[in-house]
């Protein structure tokens, strides 16, 4: 079977932004199929109660420095918009409206959020971002209001929960060794995704090494 990576993401997560800059190369190198899987992170948090308490200051500080360190390490720009986290429901629906152009729309919206530091809860920002990559922003925004698109985002979020997803980015890697898929959470686990695509599979938890 052709190895496959399902890449679960929401625009509001800086680590998912970082991951999206590398995931295509990673999959191409391994000859794997890449499937873009947008979902509403807030919906997952709400469903499984994982938003958690506020981080202690030292942890919050580390977390903030950490995302900029990773951006510097992999050599991509990162700018946090003032209002972060901004609502991404509209942007996610607009991306889904793009259908076969989902990847192109997603990259444009990531750029708006994390490179241009814009508020993508604003329809005019979404439209301009999509227009800039040759998509019809106005048409996609109109489509984003359709009930079937709203339903699709709900369905995809439910699907993420059913897969055991609790955060973003998440990678579900299916290979001949793991036909049901192994789940990896975090852009900092992408080297494990790469290894898994090459056939690596660690023992199950509980087994001695």
């Amino acid at each position, binding site marked *: 079977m052709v190895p496959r990576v399902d890449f679960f993401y929401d625009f509001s997560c800086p680590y998912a932004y970082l991951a999206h800059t590398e995931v295509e190369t990673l999959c191409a190198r391994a000859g794997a199929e890449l499937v873009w899987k947008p979902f509403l992170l807030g919906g997952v948090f709400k469903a499984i109660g994982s938003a958690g308490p*506020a981080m202690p200051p030292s942890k*919050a500080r580390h*977390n903030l*420095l*950490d*995302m900029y360190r990773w951006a510097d*390490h992999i050599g991509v720009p990162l700018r946090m918009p003032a209002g972060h986290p901004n609502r991404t429901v509209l942007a996610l629906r607009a991306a889904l409206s793009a259908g076969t152009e989902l990847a192109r729309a997603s990259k444009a919206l990531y750029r708006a959020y994390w490179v241009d530091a814009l508020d993508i809860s604003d329809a005019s920002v979404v439209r301009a971002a999509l227009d800039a990559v040759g998509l019809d922003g106005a048409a996609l925004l109109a489509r984003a209001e359709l009930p079937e698109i709203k339903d699709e985002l709900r369905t995809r979020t439910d699907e993420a929960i059913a897969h055991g997803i609790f*955060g973003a980015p998440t990678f579900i890697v299916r290979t001949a060794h793991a036909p049901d898929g192994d789940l990896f959470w975090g852009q900092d686990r992408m080297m494990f995704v790469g290894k898994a695509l090459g056939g690596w599979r660690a023992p199950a938890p509980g087994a001695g090494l």
Partner: protein
Amino acid sequence: VTSPGPDGSSAGGRSATGPRDLLFFFDFASPFAYLGATQVEGVAARHGARLFYRPFLLGGLFKQIGTPDVPFFAMPAAKQRHTSADMVRWADHWGVPFRFPSRFPMNTTKPLRMVLQLAEPDRARLVHPIFRAYWAEDRDISSDDVLAEIALDAGLEGRRLVAMARETRWKNALRSATERAEQMGVCGAPCFMVREPTRPQQPLLFWGQDRLLLVERALQGWQGGPFDGQPQELPEDPAPPTRPAPERWPALAALPESITRVPLQEPTRFEPLAPSRAAQPLDEPSHTNVRAPLPSAPEENTRPDHRGPLPSLSEEVTRDVPGGPEGAPSEPPASMTQVGFVRPDSDEPE
């Protein structure tokens, strides 16, 4: 002699002005600290860094910074599953033995105090066997007999180290070490701090064994992201990140309640130091050379065993005060305090 780079770094992994320091903050209680410990000597050696072992009580730190005592219990089931798989993956990735212990959580105060008794050059001999005993061999590292045997096998005076671990001064030493770790921004285990000789007041702190590749870059002169060393430029009002902080506790779902809820033998009650303590130049008992007679009093604070000068952590804290040689403002701007910039001077007398 290689010519230094613009940041004082050189290709050889050593700063132009001497070796870099790598501080390893750990508690034996954490599986991820164990995983990090299996790598830390190699990392330091590859880059010619001086390695310092910094034991601290993770439970005490959690209490201080307001993290759930065992954060794992607060995780949703899906995250627990991933965390369980994750530690096994790391062990397999690095090719190190790993076996989730049958006794968890573990009271680690005694072995941590034993490490504190040792001079820096001797610590590695004890740290690694204790980590292995708990996280690979399923041994009870709260047992005096087990600890004495491990220490003896390491060529140390096991019985004496174990006996001294019960003394008040070493209990205080662990409290002090934990307090200092917190002051230095440690927020979990393991943490790694890279200190440049050219900018010792701006160390880089990394949390997690999964940040070791960034630690290695820092040991080659990388200075982190655009905001490292420039906390005043951190964005205003950073909201809580949308991704929950990775938790560093293992999966217990498979373990019976009787095991996961075993009460600790001793309370790990953690009292903050009185403000005056942090300001003392040295507040740690002297290291015990295991082959030499015991020091007569912990207040002596002679450090005959260190190779080369080792500034006390209290000195480091003092040097970290804004307004140092870099000309930082004497009062951190609001944005720094909003994101919880650690102000190690907060306990300093006026």
